[in-house]
């Protein structure tokens, strides 16, 4: 029987809800369940109200849902905040000693003395393991899996701590099994299969590594820091150097120095940090230095909402940097797509000697999905530097070729010297004030666009072949739009979706082919100005219907889209 079950674990920052979610999702994934987990947290270290949603299903799931069937409330506020969004029959798990829950029809209450059982296991800090035990019992999962997880994953803890956690988990499990064996959970069963669980940050990071990143520099900024931390943790193993810069300007210019010298380089940042890289990105354009810029969006302007999600930086990324130069912009829709896109991005930056943007957001980086596998051979690392010995002399760093791309060497290769320069310059990189040189240089750079247009896949189509209505997603709205299509198709609507990962150079012809003569085209995006919608209209000259927008810092879900869609759809 198909099932789609949503678990909310809620509490304040510092209570360890990530730990509970971590244990649970790992074991569920290993058992073959399909998951989508998303994070809703505040910009603070302790207190406030945070929650994780874990959607569990027998088939792939791509987006969060708002209503829950199981709430683990780690504090009183969590009960208050999430009570309304429980859909019965639902369960609330809470600490019977500290939290009050009003009983209601359709809501079953599982009251467990969590703190007490933790203390009985030797310390109050094992409370998350107790809660995990409770969940394993309720969800009819195997206690052995939980114990196994605690044994192997907590390896940096002392043997005593591991024992304490296992004890605590067992107590929670037993207590629940004994007192609440009558509770029915609708989470179904699936064929056992070991699935991986990956979030967007990990997938971009691993993609960059697979794409041969050699140098990464960054200044910490939510929600991009996870990518930087991941690569930093693996740097030694992969012969990468990772540097936390004094500011984003330094981060960007370090990457450009490394890139100019011949090392594949990347930076990670978010809104404000991206803004600070504006001039550096223009230098990448002028000096034709390969660099990958992973910008993970959060709501702005300025500081905005550091831990929330948005797609407000599209216009900036398309236009960032004074003066004119070509660039690539990708906005992967899922963690899976983000992995392959990141490998591509590393290749393309070098191939065309242009800045390449990976435009993600908090929703993408902080949400985890289950996957069968990732294939690092599907998109392969490929070098586009001139092979040593093949360098034609005199070597011209900015040779005005037909494709616009000049042969790329590293400093001192085959004993040549060359200069990488930020001015209007001659083919050998020296400052020029000549008008013909200026004109030719711009034309050379923009000639790259011809081949850049052909790179990477265009928009993806999903749904009914000749659907009347087309929803358009880009970046992380992919999941919610895709599920909306499934939902509407079930209702026999004539719908399909087009998803954009490659945003620039804009795939004009493919778009026109896919969009022309539709009755209604509706772009779904996380911003106020409908930035992508505006771009789509500009590039295709096709008119679209009223876009479906969300700009309150939260990701889309099916219900939200359907509601907005039906409202204007009369």
């Amino acid at each position: 029987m198909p099932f789609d079950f949503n678990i909310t674990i809620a509490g304040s920052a510092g209570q360890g809800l990530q730990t509970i979610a971590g244990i649970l999702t790992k074991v569920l994934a290993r058992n073959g369940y399909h998951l989508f987990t998303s994070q809703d947290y505040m910009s603070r270290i302790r207190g406030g109200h945070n929650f994780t949603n874990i959607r569990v299903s027998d088939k792939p799931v791509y987006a969060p849902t708002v209503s829950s069937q199981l709430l683990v409330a780690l504090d009183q506020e969590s009960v208050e905040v999430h009570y309304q969004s429980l859909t019965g029959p639902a369960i609330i798990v809470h600490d019977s000693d500290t939290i009050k829950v009003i009983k209601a029809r359709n809501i079953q209450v599982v009251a467990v003395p969590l703190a007490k059982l933790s203390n009985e296991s030797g310390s109050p800090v094992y409370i998350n393991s107790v809660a995990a035990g409770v969940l394993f019992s309720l969800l009819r999962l195997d206690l052995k899996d939980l114990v196994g997880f605690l044994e192997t994953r907590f390896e940096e803890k002392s043997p005593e701590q591991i024992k304490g956690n296992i004890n605590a988990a067992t107590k929670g499990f037993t207590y629940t099994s004994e007192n609440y064996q009558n509770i029915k959970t609708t989470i179904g069963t699936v064929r056992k299969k070991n699935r991986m669980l990956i979030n967007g940050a990990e997938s971009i990071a691993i993609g960059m590594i697979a794409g041969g990143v050699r140098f990464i520099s960054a200044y910490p900024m939510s929600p991009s820091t996870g990518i930087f931390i991941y690569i930093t943790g693996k740097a030694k193993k992969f012969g990468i150097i990772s540097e936390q810069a004094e500011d984003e300007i330094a981060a960007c210019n370090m990457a450009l120095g490394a890139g100019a010298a011949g090392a594949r380089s990347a930076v990670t940042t978010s809104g404000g940090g991206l803004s600070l890289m504006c001039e550096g990105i223009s230098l990448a354009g002028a000096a034709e230095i390969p660099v990958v810029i992973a910008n993970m969006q959060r709501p702005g302007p300025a500081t905005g909402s550091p831990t929330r999600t948005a797609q407000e930086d599209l216009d900036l990324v398309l236009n960032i940097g004074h003066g004119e130069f070509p660039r690539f912009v990708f906005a992967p829709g899922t963690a899976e797509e983000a992995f392959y896109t990141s490998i591509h991005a590393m290749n393309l930056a070098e191939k065309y000697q242009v800045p390449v943007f990976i435009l993600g957001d908090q929703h993408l980086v902080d949400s985890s999905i289950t996957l069968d596998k990732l294939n690092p051979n599907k998109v392969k690392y490929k070098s586009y530097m001139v092979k040593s010995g093949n360098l034609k002399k005199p070597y011209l760093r900015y040779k005005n070729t037909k494709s616009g791309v000049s042969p790329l060497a590293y400093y001192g290769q085959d004993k040549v010297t060359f200069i990488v320069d930020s001015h209007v310059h001659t083919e050998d990189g020296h400052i020029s004030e000549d008008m013909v040189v200026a004109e030719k240089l711009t034309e050379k750079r923009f000639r790259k666009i011809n081949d850049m247009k052909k790179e990477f896949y265009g928009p993806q189509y999903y749904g009914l072949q000749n659907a009347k209505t087309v929803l358009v997603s880009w970046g992380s709205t992919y999941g919610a739009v895709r599920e909306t299509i499934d939902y509407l198709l079930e209702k026999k609507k004539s719908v399909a979706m087009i998803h954009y990962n490659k945003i620039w150079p804009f795939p004009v012809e493919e778009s026109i082919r896919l969009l022309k003569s539709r009755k209604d085209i509706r772009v779904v995006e996380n911003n106020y100005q409908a930035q992508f919608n505006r771009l789509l209209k500009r590039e295709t000259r096709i008119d679209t219907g009223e876009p479906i927008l969300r700009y309150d810092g939260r990701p889309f879900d099916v219900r939200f889209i359907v509601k907005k869609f039906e409202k204007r759809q009369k």
Partner: protein
Amino acid sequence: MTKENHFHYSVERAWCPGCGDYSILSSVENALANLKKKPHEVLMVSGIGQAAKLPHYIKANGFDGLHGRALPAAFGAKVANHKLMVLVTSGDGDIYGEGGNHFIHAIRRNIDITLIVHNNQIYGLTKGQASPTSDLGMVTKTQPDGVFTIPFNPLEMAVTLDAAFVARSFSKDMAFTTKLIEEGIRTPGFSLIDVLQPCVSFNHVNTYKWYSDRVYQLDNSYDPTDKSKAYKKSSEWGDKIPIGVIFKNSRKTYLDNFIKHKDLPLIKRKTNIKEVDSLINELY
């Protein structure tokens, strides 16, 4: 050094006749030749300004980036290919003004590069506004009542930040400047050589004569390894201006933490796809 230097690049220089930049260029060429380097082994990095045009006028690799951002770019290039000898040549406005934050943090990292600041105490290329090192009272079109912010003393700062090598020279004294550049390059870690450089077009206060009347070479009795003495010496400015090695401080360089000299530079390393598999496997 009259013999033709293989770093010498014959090309028109967009500098004013008489500008101190010419001698600094010659000193750099001479130092590199004396060190027996070949042009392709050297990378000259600069920002933007009159001084920063230098990489265009020498036979070597170059990176002429953004105003104020030479140091992070030089850092990146050195990390990418630690076999390159990396020099930065830029102006006082570039390094101490727009690039002030990178100056501090590059020294803290102790990356093994040599920074040569053409310190003309003015913004040359933009036609004569005060720079961070302009003396009090200097009148310009943007400081019509004279400068009243206390001048930035780069040597005091570098000593305070425990730079590996801190020196001052005067552009006119080419042999001395050459020697200091050589020594700066030879010293592992971050070396600063602040070179007093007359700007004949805009700085009518700190002229050749003004500098000549004041500079004196530190003699052997001065011990540059004593930080508190170095700090004191670095603060000398006015009627007497010391030139020479102000401070020497041996400490681990940035790359010592990552790379041995014989290691493959980053640019030659390859990612092993099998190892990427292991990252993926960790996620199950």
